């Protein structure tokens, strides 16, 4: 398998593959808050933002919509194998922002089937995926979520580079007259705009932040060690006030972003218990804030030279992180829509 840490058959890895899959379906049965802590630790320990994103794409973005909107058959079919790591699911990061981008996959009704045509790029985990969560638009623009297995005739996956987070493994998905039955529809037909899409957006905004909290903590740890080891002007960097103040600000950003993440994640758990919906505003502010925190922390750590090149990779990947999830263009508009009660 291409993502060994996610799919290795150990207990710990099983939890990473399926933390949000319920226990009775073979998953870890963790809460959203616990899953975030797991992903934070994975980001800190793996020191790899791309691998963290791969874990989120499979264990959250591909898993939770199925848990939330899947039929009993769909849940029984997919979730146990996703939780064990036997199957991985993939989602395009261009399909996690509702209709803010024009749809690139079309769905046509043909008797009792659906015919899908189109191409979607930036599919996280595509080269290794067993199946894909794909949003497709009707001729009249209504959108439906589909679960498309890799062996569906007419489906092609082309591995691509993304320029960042290479360890996530990226691909372009092309569907050419793919014929799907109603059992491939996730949720209500033509209702993705009010079902799967808002959920996917909030999941992306919240959970992709979690590995980054860990990466920021790893960078902070590296920076503290560096400041204690290296000298400038004949004295340890740790004696330099400007170094000390920068490190303090890095620590502050870590704590603030973690606080935002924990609030947003906990709302998924409250919702699980009470049926109340997590706040889209809180999800979007979490991503908006964390993206800025990640940019500032990686910039402050850009001088570090660790053997594994974390600072360079994180600097590159932070720019990518800040541009996905809709980037500031979408996130600011979404937060403003909530605060101003407009939009």
């Amino acid at each position, binding site marked *: 398998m291409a993502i060994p840490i996610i799919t290795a058959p150990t207990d710990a890895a099983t939890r990473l593959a399926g933390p949000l899959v319920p226990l009775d379906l073979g998953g870890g049965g963790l809460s959203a808050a616990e899953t975030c802590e797991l992903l934070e630790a994975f980001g800190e320990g793996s020191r790899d933002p791309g691998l963290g994103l791969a874990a989120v794409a499979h264990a959250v973005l591909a898993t939770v919509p199925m848990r939330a909107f899947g039929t009993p058959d769909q849940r029984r079919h997919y979730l146990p194998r996703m939780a064990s790591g036997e199957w991985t699911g993939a989602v395009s990061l261009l399909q996690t922002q509702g209709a803010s981008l024009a749809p690139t996959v079309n769905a046509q009704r043909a008797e009792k089937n659906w015919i899908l045509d189109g191409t979607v790029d930036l599919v996280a985990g595509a080269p290794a995926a067993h199946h894909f969560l794909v949003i497709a638009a009707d001729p009249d623009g209504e959108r439906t979520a589909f679960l498309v297995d890799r062996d569906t005739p007419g489906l092609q996956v082309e591995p691509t580079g993304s320029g960042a987070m290479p360890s996530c493994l990226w691909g372009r998905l092309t569907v050419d007259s793919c014929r799907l039955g109603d059992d491939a529809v996730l949720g209500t037909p033509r209702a993705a705009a009010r079902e799967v899409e808002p959920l996917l957006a909030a999941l992306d905004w919240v959970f992709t932040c979690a590995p980054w909290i860990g990466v920021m903590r790893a960078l902070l740890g590296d920076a503290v060690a560096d400041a204690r080891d290296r000298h400038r002007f004949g*004295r340890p960097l740790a004696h330099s006030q400007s170094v000390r103040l920068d490190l303090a600000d890095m*620590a502050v950003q870590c704590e603030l*972003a973690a606080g935002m993440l924990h609030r947003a994640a906990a709302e998924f758990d409250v919702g699980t218990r009470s049926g109340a919906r997590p706040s889209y505003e809180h999800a979007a502010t979490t991503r908006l804030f964390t993206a800025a925190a990640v940019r500032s922390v990686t910039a402050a750590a850009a001088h570090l030279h660790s053997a594994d090149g974390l600072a360079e990779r994180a600097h590159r990947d932070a720019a990518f992180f800040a541009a996905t999830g809709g980037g500031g263009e979408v996130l600011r508009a979404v937060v*403003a829509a909530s605060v*101003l009660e407009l939009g």
Partner: protein
Amino acid sequence: MLRIDHPRTAHPGIAARAADTDTTGHIPAQNWKELADAGYGALFHSDEDGGSGADSDAQVAAMEALARDCPSTYWSATVSSLLCAKLIATYGDSTHRPLLHALISGRRLAAFGVVETAAGSDAGTYQTTVRPASPPGSAGPAGTGFTITGEKSRITNAPNADLAVVLARRERAAGDDGPDWCLAFVDLHQPGVHRYAIPHMGLRGMPWGGLVFTDALVAEADVIPVPLDELSEGMTWGWLLVSVAAIGIAESALAASVAHAGSRVSFGRPLAHMEGVQAQIALSRAEIDAARLLARRAAAERTAGRPARSLIAMLKIYATEMAVGVTERAVQIHGATGVTAGHEVERLYRDAQMNVIGAFASNRLRELVAENLGLGPAVYAPFDWVRSTGLAQDPVGLNGPSLEGT
């Protein structure tokens, strides 16, 4: 959608008088009455200490609500009923209970005297000293308490407080190997006390100024030796109260911005439809939330009695500087009205800056955070390390030294 309500007006009368409080530089008596009636000061203290024992979230919410209504009143009341009362509850004993109750109920007002005229955060420069009123061998009767001499400056409530909790050096008798420092609870209504007000940029309704002690009397029970390190944990109540002031000020500035953006029409549409305005509002929303979440966490830790010095330091750094940014955006969204004297955001803009400075300025706290990251204590050395590297000298020109002196 799950929404945690941002505190709104809790004291409409105090909010309605906030502009006047700023203009006149005086907190109306009615404000004090309304706070006492609401039991504001009791929230911060346990039942045993005469409080109402609110949980930490409720405390932060009540603090922010008052800070939103009137930052000046908030500062004055909270310095007395939270910070000073906590110090008395922590370091005092049963003889101080009437004093504690008086502060909690708002019947008396306290000031916290730390900073002196020579320096703000550097305790090494402080001169104020407590010494026995009649040292052994002197003419007067022994054992009649202590006197305090020195000047504390830029102190909230100094012009009108009834009592000051003062950080002072201890003049120790031979054989006394206790701490070098003490807290002295000083009655300010006595001949040895002179006080003065200092005009200030923001929080103009908050009384602020200096206290000059000239052999002012302090009862023996009111001088409590305290190690300086330990005292800084007590001061974190002050950092917390200032952080919450900043959050309340920022939230008020954002609320004013949202209201203005919704009603002000420019280029044929309300400002709220301008993406530039939306971006400012979205950023403010995210930053205020981040600060408030950290405030709740820090307050929970502190209220539970766990060490929270580093966390509260982080909070104060971020929250106070954040509020300066948010109020600056608010002024920009309001345009010319925002820089007009008497307008709410003009006042909030001035108020926000005070929080960055008060109760340890940001960079002092960054040093503390850095130390807790494992970097060791701050190192202050004479600045002499650049010249020896050869970097601080003018280089030769493109043709080298050959033309020099010709």
